[in-house]
């Protein structure tokens, strides 16, 4: 279980770096099926491009890194998908997801606002939260695991000309190939946001003890977070 977490982490870093390098070759985003420099973009990232065919306003053309970036991107995607598969099967089998899905009684705004207020007061966790996750943590994990990661895979496949030939609906449901690419980019931002908050929370609750727990699986009950 911890192995899948770290495999996913390594794959995610590789995917973000190579994805960024690929975006540089065309830092324009569109909605619909088609989009190119002759069509109106939805938004543009104001950076130079690695292609001199893209009008960016800069005179500078970045080095082209797409060859190895694409190869590593897809290999890392396979690592993430296979790790996710193992995690999903194990999670269903072990009942791990029961610890993640927010409890029925917390399905209301009050539970969320109460938990946020607690964070703002910097109150220590409840007894019930010490060994499990609170409603905000659970929601964040559920959204990342069951919405954002699947959406990344879906939008990634919707950009594959061979896959959409077999299953055109994967792109059509999203509004087209370019919509899929735009969603792929936006969800990357959401996943990065999750990563920053996740790491910040780990740091706040004691970076070294949390890291030791996540790497070795070993926690010392007597040990308090600094």
């Amino acid at each position, binding site marked *: 279980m911890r192995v899948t977490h770290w495999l996913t982490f390594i794959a995610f870093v590789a995917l973000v770096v190579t994805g960024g390098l*690929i*975006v540089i*070759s*065309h830092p*324009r985003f569109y909605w619909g*099926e*088609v*989009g*190119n*420099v*002759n*069509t109106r973009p939805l938004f543009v990232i104001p950076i130079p491009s690695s*292609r*001199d*065919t893209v009008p960016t306003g800069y005179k500078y053309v970045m080095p082209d890194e*797409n*060859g*190895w970036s*694409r*190869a*590593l991107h*897809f*290999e*890392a*995607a*396979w690592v993430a998908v296979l790790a996710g598969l193992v995690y999903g099967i194990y999670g269903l089998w072990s009942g791990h997801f029961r610890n993640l899905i927010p409890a029925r009684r917390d399905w209301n705004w009050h539970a969320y606002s109460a938990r946020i207020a607690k964070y703002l007061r910097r109150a220590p966790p409840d007894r019930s939260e010490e060994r499990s996750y609170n409603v905000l943590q659970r929601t964040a994990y559920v959204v990342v695991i069951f919405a954002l990661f699947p959406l990344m895979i879906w939008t990634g496949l919707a*950009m*594959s*000309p*061979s*896959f*959409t*030939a*077999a299953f*055109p609906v994967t792109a059509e449901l999203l509004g087209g*190939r*370019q919509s899929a*690419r735009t969603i792929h980019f936006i969800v990357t931002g959401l996943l990065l946001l999750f990563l920053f908050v996740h790491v910040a929370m780990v740091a706040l609750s004691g970076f070294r003890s949390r890291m030791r727990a996540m790497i*070795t*699986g*070993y926690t010392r009950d007597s040990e308090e977070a600094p």
Partner: protein
Amino acid sequence: MSLSKNPISRRRLIRGGVAAVAGVAGLAAADRLAKRYGLIPPDGSGIYGPGESLTYACQRLLTTRTPAHEFSRSMISKNPFANAVAPPNDAFKRLAVGGFRDWRLVVDGTVAHPMSLSLADLKGLGVHSQITEVACEEGWSYIAEWIGTPLSGVLREAGVLPQTRYIVYSSIEEGAWASIDMQDAGDPHTLLTMGMNDGDLPVPFGGPLRLRLPRQLGYKSLKYINHITATDNIKKFGKGLGGVDPEYGYAWYAGI
């Protein structure tokens, strides 16, 4: 510290070992099966080999005999984007002066009848049209109507021998070549394209002759095609990676 608290107990060690052995055995078996059924691409070795092979094998198993995605006429892009091309070389310019009447497509390799076809000969083999999208690996795309003769018809005329595994195609541009497997070569949408949107195929879009391969990214749709070679051994060509793009790190199989 009691033994049960030790995170690496003997039982876990045995369980982990069994899982690792099973994993390695499974991978070895998958590799053998993939090789037997031709699911390893020409660039399926090296550090990115596992990723390339998984993608190629899965897409081949999933997309066998699925035609390219065709669009309605109303979706044809009004301003298609012609990617930058190298300035045409002297040989190209000479043929352009003659209106490409002397353009020839040479077909050789593992075929019963090697041929040399003019554009008129190609049109004589039957003209088809399709409305498909060009998707570039950079991220942009456009839709156009493409008019030409299917590669499969030319291969039938030439009598491709049964041992053939790849079709190598190259451009009048020095060093520009690529290859496809027999599944893509036999796809009716793999089109030797001479026309675009009811006109001749413009030079910036690959005219007079471009091999359109709508189920793969744009870089496999090579412009200015003048030579097709059927082969049973892709290793004999270039660095053996099945194209010039893989020599620069781009995937041979560009269905993704």
